[in-house]
């Protein structure tokens, strides 16, 4: 009996002493509904490879039942951790409980769930409101005391990125009465609508009075930039352009001087997740329940062409 305890003790210390390598991690991804999602998958694979973990990937094709099935399979396979990008917020209690009973830590990526916090290790995500604030603060710094009329292209009406990125931007420019949002309309996060709505903004405001465009995502900004050009104005000079997401195409626009700044919604959610997991495996460090990713601001000064080259193969 004593021997057995000693053996068990030895085994655990030996395991703990091993470098955090060759762990098997299951990744239950939503699907590939957007370029950003595809990039997140690519970056997660790259991160796992870089750190020497074995990544098992499951694509749920936008269906929760597939995702639950994938998580159950991971549990049955006895993986060392599960990364989950939940397709919806509800209905996870049971499968998360199963993972907890099997002592497999679950890290949520990018989206949250409505389950009790002790059912998962941590959640990695961006703060949408913070992204909007970073964009707003950039504009404040850029225009100084000059009067600046801003037009805003909102995301899909009622979606949480649209609500939070709007609120964040308003908080960012709060207290600077020279900056005013004069027009705000939804562009549905698409290029076509971004272009169409910008055309109407230019007509409604008479062009010269618009000093800056704030778009809730880069795609709408790319569409709007074309509308500004077709109206005979210079985007990036006559009208400042700031948007969110940092997809490759906006860096091309920035390299051409047609966009001014973008706030990154990083596809690298896996990096911080692996950091937290490795600390947890090593000595049981429990991370905070929410790990906020950096909302990095990129401007024309950041060599946009080089960033475009590095991002274009991520699958955006």
């Amino acid at each position: 009996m004593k021997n057995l305890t000693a053996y068990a003790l030895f085994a655990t210390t030996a395991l703990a002493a091993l470098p955090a390598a060759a762990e098997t991690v299951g990744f239950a991804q939503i699907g590939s509904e957007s370029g950003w999602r595809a990039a997140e998958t690519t970056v997660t694979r790259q991160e796992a490879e870089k750190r020497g973990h074995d990544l098992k990937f499951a694509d749920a094709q936008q269906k929760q039942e597939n995702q639950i099935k994938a998580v159950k399979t991971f549990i049955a396979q006895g993986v060392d951790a599960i990364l989950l990008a939940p397709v919806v917020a509800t209905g996870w209690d049971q499968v998360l409980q199963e993972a907890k009973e099997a002592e497999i830590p679950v890290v949520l990526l990018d989206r949250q769930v409505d389950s009790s916090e002790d059912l998962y290790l941590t959640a990695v995500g961006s703060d949408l409101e913070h992204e909007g604030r970073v964009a707003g603060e950039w504009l404040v710094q850029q225009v100084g005391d000059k009067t600046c009329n801003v037009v805003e292209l909102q995301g899909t009406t009622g979606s949480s990125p649209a609500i939070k990125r709007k609120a964040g931007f308003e908080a960012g420019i709060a207290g600077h009465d020279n900056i005013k949002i004069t027009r705000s309309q939804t562009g549905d996060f698409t290029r076509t609508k971004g272009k169409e709505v910008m055309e109407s903004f230019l007509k409604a405001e008479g062009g010269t009075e618009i000093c800056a465009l704030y778009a809730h995502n880069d795609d709408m900004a790319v569409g709007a930039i074309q509308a500004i050009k077709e109206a005979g104005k210079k985007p990036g000079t006559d009208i400042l352009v700031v948007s969110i997401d940092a997809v490759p195409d906006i860096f091309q626009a920035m390299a051409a001087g047609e966009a001014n700044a973008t706030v990154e919604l990083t596809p690298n959610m896996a990096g911080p997740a692996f950091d937290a997991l490795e600390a947890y495996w090593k000595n049981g460090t429990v991370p905070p329940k929410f790990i906020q990713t950096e909302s990095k601001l990129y401007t024309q000064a950041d060599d946009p062409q080089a960033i475009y080259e590095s991002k274009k193969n991520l699958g955006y």
Partner: protein
Amino acid sequence: MTLPAGLARILPMLATLVLLVAAITVVSPGFLEISVANGRLYGSPIDVLNRGAPVALLAIGMTLVIATGGIDLSVGAVMAICGAVAAKMVTLGYPLPVTLLAALATGAACGLWNGLLVSVLRIQPIIATLILMVAGRGIAQLVTEGAILTFSDPGLAFLGSGAVLGVPFPVLLWTAAAVGTILVLRRTALGFLIEAVGVNARAAYRAGVNTRVTIIAVYVVSGLCAALAGLVVTADIRGADANNAGLWLELDAILAVVIGGNSLLGGRFSVVASLIGAMITQTVNTGILLAGFPPEYNLLIKAWIVLVILVVQSPRLRPLLARRRAMRRGTPT
């Protein structure tokens, strides 16, 4: 009343359009201003004609399909497929004529598929075209590999944002397509044959109309129109967005046909009335954007305007209004 039959047919739609424009001009006084900027006509009416191009193109094909008693739900997805094909071909370095032909051939093939399902396999049109509506976006995504496929070819971009003598190219495209279609339909017996199939397919068949070929032909025309619309929206943003190109536009096209006073049961049709219907829906869209309402109200306002237009045009209300007018005129003093 001595109005020519053609004009009498489109008069209610024209009146609606004029009233709508007047109402929008009251809300946003600059609505009717047209100037020249950057060597092209510039102003909200031009935006309506230009932005309305995809739905106008779709409405041409949709009118014919609906005239045979059918419906084509796949046009939005076919737009995405054809746009994706064009963007893919041009980024692979194929010359522009080959690219355009490939996109049009893709549209025609999609139409042929729908037509065969409807006329040969006798599947209900709403279900037959639903198949491609659902599968189409998947096909488009396969072509673009999930990302927005961007291109910089100036020739293809011209289809969306070019201008001839100051007029945006999409406007010229849809008017040319409309004039061409109407000439072919009305200078030949084709329009009459389509109406015959829509009124009573069996009677038309007994009278010697090749109903099968007629039905396949209208779906192919619808596919071709969708291909043109897909080229326009793809060229407009210089990129093929498989997820969003043409999304829900099949419904806008059906709405345009209905506002144009065409019966969903088939039979008599007017392409011109459908096109005015398309311009009415686009005028509503552009008017809402200009008015500066919070975006939460967009769909609600649009729905109300459409409801009012359809109620005024409804078969029950129109005779009622006409009778009252007649009564007032006939009242002795």
